[in-house]
């Protein structure tokens, strides 16, 4: 099985497989150790028996100083006896010279090595102990090498060992099989919390209800931690989904407002244009008045478009250009421009000497000031006072007018897009103060509206100073 296939296995199978592997390991190791211990003990007991026989009378009989042995094929020496299932033989020069007991007819090697050995002869297994005897002097030169070999039938013993092996193997196999079955059975309840979790998650995803939460504290630690993690993720998703919903709603409302704001002047422009086209003979004065209206409506439309573009730019400003800006300089330039635009208004500027530095986007700060001053001129009377005051870590910009002011209930929403004061005599785009609020926010500042000393409105913008 390759790794990919392994990864696809169910948790239940994996748990069962892990348990089975553990049990199998224990059973096999235990079985092997048991059989080995038993076999070892049995075999050494047989070896000791062979050793004892070698020390006994049969062994002694053929040793120097013992009973002289007979010739080959002759009757065995006294004591060269063997019980049933065992034998003893003397080999000299590769030939059996004496033998007794249940000697297997053939198959025994005639030049065995010294020491213990297990040999197979006549279909049975024999344990042998071979000892070298002192050589017997020969009539024909070289002394003949002599060996005495004791043998015992190892079959009963090996059968006992084999039988034990078979029993152990059977028990192990049964144990492993039982483990497979039991582990599979027990894995299901063990995995139940996980299944419940899976069903709960599936429930969230089918109902798309992000307010649902998974049960916590009902299962094992790992599952609980998982449930907790999923719940935190759900909470985050719920929050961001709510924010997105609000943003979408705001965008929808804004799009509808834009349509309305643009369609209205376009409609009256069309009416005015048609009036001029269909009445070529209208009095010059009337014609002039209508054309002026058209030009003004066109200018209003341009203002709305400018503001919309500026707002869109601010909305999408992920990385605002940031550079040191001397607010006093920008204010001076903006106020000068406003004076040229509104020669009838009295616009005063008061700012501390020297550079008044903030870090920000010069265009955006200019936009903020332009819109505050424009708002003051439009809704105020004849006087506008622009003041820049240095605070501890901020610059406070106030724009006062001598108009009717902003009623307290309207102060919150006056910075909303297309929000206009109820007591306003000459409505503007409805976007100027929204732009002010947007730029203040983009520059990590704040804006609020209150009362000026002269009874009009005072707009205050606080920007962090550099």
């Amino acid at each position, binding site marked *: 099985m390759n790794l990919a296939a392994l990864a696809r296995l169910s948790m239940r199978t994996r748990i069962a497989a892990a348990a089975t592997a553990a049990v199998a390991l224990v059973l096999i190791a235990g079985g092997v150790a048991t059989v080995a211990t038993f076999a070892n003990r049995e075999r050494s007991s047989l070896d000791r028996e062979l050793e004892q026989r070698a020390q006994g009378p049969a062994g002694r009989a053929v040793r120097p100083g013992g009973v002289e042995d007979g010739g080959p094929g002759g009757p065995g020496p006294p004591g060269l006896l063997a019980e049933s299932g065992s034998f003893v033989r003397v080999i000299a020069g590769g030939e059996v010279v004496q033998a007794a007991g249940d000697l297997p007819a053939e198959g025994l090697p005639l030049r065995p090595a010294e020491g213990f050995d297990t040999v197979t002869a006549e279909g049975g297994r024999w344990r042998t102990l071979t000892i070298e005897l002192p050589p017997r002097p020969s009539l024909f030169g070289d002394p003949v090498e002599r060996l005495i070999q004791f043998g015992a039938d190892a079959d009963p013993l090996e059968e006992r060992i084999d039988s034990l092996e078979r029993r152990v193997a059977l028990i192990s196999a049964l144990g492993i099989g039982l483990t497979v079955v039991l582990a599979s059975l027990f894995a299901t309840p063990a995995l139940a919390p996980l299944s419940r979790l899976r069903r709960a998650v599936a429930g969230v995803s089918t109902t798309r209800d992000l307010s649902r939460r998974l049960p916590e504290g009902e299962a094992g630690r790992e599952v609980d931690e998982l449930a907790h993690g999923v719940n935190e993720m759900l909470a985050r998703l719920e929050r961001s989904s709510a924010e997105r919903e609000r943003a979408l709603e705001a965008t929808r409302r804004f799009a509808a407002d834009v349509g309305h704001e643009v369609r209205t002047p376009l409609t009256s422009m069309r009416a005015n244009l048609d009036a001029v086209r269909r009445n070529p003979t209208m009095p010059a004065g009337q014609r002039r008045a209508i054309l002026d209206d058209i030009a003004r409506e066109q200018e209003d439309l341009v203002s709305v478009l400018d503001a919309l*573009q500026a707002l869109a730019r601010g909305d999408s400003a992920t990385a605002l250009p940031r550079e040191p800006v001397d607010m006093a300089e920008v204010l001076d330039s903006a*106020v*000068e*421009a406003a004076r040229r*635009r509104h020669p009838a208004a009295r616009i005063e*500027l008061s700012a501390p000497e020297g550079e008044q530095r903030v870090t920000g986007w010069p265009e955006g700060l200019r936009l903020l000031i332009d819109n505050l001053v424009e708002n003051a001129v439009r809704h105020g009377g004849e006087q506008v006072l622009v003041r820049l005051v240095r605070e501890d870590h901020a610059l406070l910009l106030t724009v006062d007018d001598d108009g009717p002011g902003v009623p307290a209930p309207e102060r919150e929403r006056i910075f909303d897009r297309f929000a206009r004061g109820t007591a306003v005599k000459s409505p503007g785009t409805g976007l100027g103060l929204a732009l002010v609020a947007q730029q203040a926010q983009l520059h990590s500042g704040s804006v609020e509206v209150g009362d000026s000393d002269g009874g009009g409105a005072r707009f205050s913008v606080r920007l962090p100073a550099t």
Partner: protein
Amino acid sequence: MNGEPLVLVVDDDEAIRTALERALRLEGFAVRVAAGGHAALEMVERERPGVMVLDVVMPDLSGISVVSRLRARGDETPICILSARDEVEDRVAGLEAGADDYVVKPFDIGELAARLRALLRRLPSADGDPTRVGDLVVDPARRTVHRAGRPVELTRREFDLLEELARNRNVVLSRDQLLEKVWGYDFAVDGNVVDVFVGYLRRKLEAEGEPRMIHTVRGVGFVLRP
């Protein structure tokens, strides 16, 4: 030539070309139109217009490139660029490349015509000895500027503005005075062209960390001090 000043209008949008051509004719200009940057460059060679109205954003060759190429070949035809309100970067690039003024689309034809007439009145280049103010040397004859021995590259309109400020050193000049003397605008002008060009001059004169020479006098205007 019938004596009417010739305006070259360059815009890739046909509606704007047609409307501008008609409106400027009615204002008393002779008008030629070009639909793109390459056509504009050819027509400047052939027709020698007195002034150009140049759209910034054009598909074939941008207005900025047109300005750069003209100035690179020594052509000092006054150029007024047209840009949308939100095309600030393009406008800045056009002015830095050597354009003389800008108007924001849509604009008042009366105001555009007034600006074009002013730009057509080529101000006589002031001759005379170099003016020294502190470590600044402005040489009107050779149209060169040095600050602390370092040559400063200026466009024509930047040079004119600096020369005016240098000749009136220690005298505060209002924006209206500068508009009139440097641009020839003797009428109310919307916009910040003086502020914009003062910004460019400051940047170029202070490029090596030198102290400020052109100071703002709040509520009044600008002054050059050593």
